[in-house]
């Protein structure tokens, strides 16, 4: 479109995003276990925090959009 600046993404901090994702994954695993919705096992206590860390690392790497 004419006159609309192109959107550009400025990266954040992937390592900090990974750390945040691990914390979120661990916290959610514990809270949801206390709600009785799932068990604490390899899936919820290890895989979920690690994959959550990678997901939020990706989000941090993506960063924020600017025009």
């Amino acid at each position, binding site marked *: 479109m004419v006159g609309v*600046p192109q*959107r*550009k*993404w*400025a*990266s*954040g*901090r*992937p390592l*900090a*995003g990974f*750390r*945040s*994702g*691990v*914390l*979120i*994954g*661990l*916290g*959610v*695993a*514990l*809270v*949801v*276990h*206390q*709600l*009785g*919705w*799932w*068990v*604490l*096992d*390899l*899936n*919820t*206590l*290890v*895989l*979920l925090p690690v*994959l*959550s860390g*990678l*997901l*939020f690392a*990706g*989000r*941090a*790497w*993506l*960063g*924020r*959009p*600017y*025009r």
Partner: protein
Amino acid sequence: MRRVLVVLGVAVIAIAVLIPAALAQEVTGGCSATVNGQTLNTLDIKHPLIVEKGDTVALTGQIPADAGSGSAASETKIYVEVVGDVPIATQSGSGRFWGGTVEIPDVLTSLAPGVYKVKGSAEGSGWLCTGSAYVKIEGGPLTAAAAVGVVAAGAGIASVLGATRPKQTQIFNEGGTAGATATPDTGARLAADAITIGLFVLLAFLLGYVGPSWVVL
């Protein structure tokens, strides 16, 4: 746009490879087994055995019909699954019956009640049986595990906001013309956040809610 597609693609592929085949709770090795009088295949994650503080969990069954002498010795081991098998009891027996009784530790009811997968294995001369069931340990609404979980998740959510924030110099170098002020694109940012949260919920659903009934470890 290319960067959005890379993050989205990697996340979807990672989630897709987590989908294994469904398996039900069962007893293997030709034995019969019950937990507190209920057959194991009825005690799945949605219908666990409910136990309270001071209760016991009794796992009992009969050895395989073709196991030979009914007077032979057997050994039963009971585990609770928490990132690997944690042994909680080993009991010896003899005759055509096998099993064991476990008292629920007070530390679980006070610190971390919830749903657990309890597994048992019994072994005798020429036979081996295994079985598992889900047990829900009742506790109070406010537990130490819940408090730790809320604090950890809260800290993670607070810090992830800072993790996505670029350094000011990066904004000018990547997001706008050098020397000019770049304008934040709030709509695109909210869309990226919503997609990330959606992927996290999907991940948690696949790994936690559906996962345990699929996986026999």
